[in-house]
């Protein structure tokens, strides 16, 4: 039987990494995947070299919409390490609070998208509804619903008062009950388990060798979390569990995220209860830095985010290298598609929580007669039912 090539991707206007998966299929079975990138390289690293240290906080937080505060965290903590800048404890706790709020809404979002991909649209809508209060909390704390711009070098921009604390605790109570319910659905519902269980299995040794990060790595049973292994901000003082599941399939990766959401809610409760008093930012803004370099790591919702920052003194960085978690997970994660069925491709891709929306449209080429047919992601998902 001749092989059929199915391009999955590449364009989507909403997200920052349009990408194409060229899926080679023998009937329903995937025999090979080639990842094609390069549709939208924006040169943010180059742009950062021309801007100043303090302005770059806002530039780098715009690399990603969903995880913008973790980008700001990685950049500022790297610069603070080079400059030996002390961040006040209250600011460290507030940064941690915002990052955990971001993790909650990011994890709920990808679980909702997964529900949509497998055809469970009502679950998708319910989860998106319950994500909204978390976005509102982010707005309450930072002033913005999506791009927070909460960070300055050496601290944060806004403080938290008692009224806001009460509001956060009250809203999270409702969110926690819903997430527990969704976890039950992901574990028990026939539609979900039928599509996710045993799909896209990655063995622990492969996950490490292929340098997968974040919930994808922990879904394969490898206990690695930057928050625990290489503590930053206030994570060294806040108790939490590193969640792992050992099956290595798409369901494990989603359950890691749902459990992490519950952990994050507990962490926020701890932060609010133990929020230290004191200033939240330095009195004079930081403008210049001496020579030095830093390798700054943060656990973004999608996994390890790393910046390599090089300073040659002055008010501008010499080099800022950014490596996002999706870059490892998408390019090196092709091993997960081995022997999958075509209908599993969007499920596996979604289980990596890719920071792209490349599966928006699908073009099927039949090599025998050269005919082409455009399918939407939904059509493709239906093939598996």
């Amino acid at each position: 039987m001749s092989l059929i090539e199915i391009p999955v991707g590449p364009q989507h206007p909403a997200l920052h990494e349009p990408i194409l998966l060229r899926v080679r299929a023998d009937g329903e079975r995937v025999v090979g995947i080639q990842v094609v990138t390069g549709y939208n390289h924006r040169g943010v690293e180059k742009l950062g070299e021309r801007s100043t240290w303090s302005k770059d906080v806002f530039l780098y937080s715009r690399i990603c919409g969903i995880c913008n505060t973790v980008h700001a965290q990685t950049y500022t903590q790297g610069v603070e390490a080079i400059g030996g800048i002390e961040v006040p404890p209250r600011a460290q706790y507030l940064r941690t609070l915002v990052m955990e709020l971001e993790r909650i809404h990011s994890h709920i979002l990808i679980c909702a998208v997964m529900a949509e991909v497998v055809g469970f649209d009502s679950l998708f809508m319910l989860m998106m509804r319950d994500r909204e209060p978390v976005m509102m909390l982010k707005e309450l704390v930072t002033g913005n619903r999506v791009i927070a711009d909460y960070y300055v070098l050496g601290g944060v921009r806004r403080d938290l008062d008692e009224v806001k604390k009460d509001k956060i605790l009250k809203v999270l109570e409702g969110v926690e009950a819903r997430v527990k319910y969704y976890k039950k659905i992901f574990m028990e519902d026939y539609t979900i388990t039928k599509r996710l269980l045993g799909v896209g299995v990655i063995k622990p040794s492969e996950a490490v060798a292929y340098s997968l990060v974040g919930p994808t790595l922990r879904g394969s049973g490898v206990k690695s979390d930057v928050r625990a292994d290489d503590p930053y901000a206030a994570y060294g003082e806040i108790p939490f569990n590193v969640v792992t599941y050992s099956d290595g399939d798409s369901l494990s990766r989603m359950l890691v995220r749902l459990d992490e959401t519950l952990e994050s809610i507990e962490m926020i409760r701890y932060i609010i209860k133990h929020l230290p008093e004191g200033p939240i930012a330095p009195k004079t803004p930081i403008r210049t830095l001496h020579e030095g370099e830093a390798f700054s790591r943060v656990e973004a919702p999608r996994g390890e985010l790393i910046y390599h920052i090089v300073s040659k003194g002055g008010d501008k960085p010499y080099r800022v290298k950014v490596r996002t978690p999706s870059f490892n997970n998408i390019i090196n994660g092709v091993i997960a598609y081995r022997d999958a069925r075509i209908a599993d491709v969007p499920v596996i891709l979604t289980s990596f929580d890719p920071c792209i929306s490349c599966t928006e449209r699908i073009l099927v080429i039949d090599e025998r007669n050269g005919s082409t047919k455009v399918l939407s992601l939904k059509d493709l998902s239906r093939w598996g039912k």
Partner: protein
Amino acid sequence: MSKAVEFLRSLGLTCKEVKQARRYVFEVSPDKLRVVVTGLIKLNLNIYSSTISVVDYINEGVIEVNYCLWVIDEKLMIVLRVRVPRDSPKVPTIHDIIPGALNGELEAYDLFGVVFEGNDKLRRGFLVPLDIANQGVFPLRKDFKV
């Protein structure tokens, strides 16, 4: 003491001082890189390739390739620093030893023109749009004007 750091010191490599905790930077010559990485992997530690960061020191005529490896079991980062001449930046590939280094090598070749000898998957246009890549320029080098 960490097994990985002990091993690198036993090879005669010296660790550069860095301010951050859990970071160990070792300078390695390009011809020894594969021996060092193979040795690290044979220690039976869980090591993944975090990133390959390239810095262009145009005034010194040097391109610096930093292999950032995270040792999961020992909770530390090993940075292997290779410095090569800017006019012919060539280093051996390590993607056959650590498969996860592939994306870093593809990126470094496309943006900086660092040739990873032995990697047959290197291609222009991985991240850079082809109209720019076809001009034979590398956009993140310091002499590339935007």
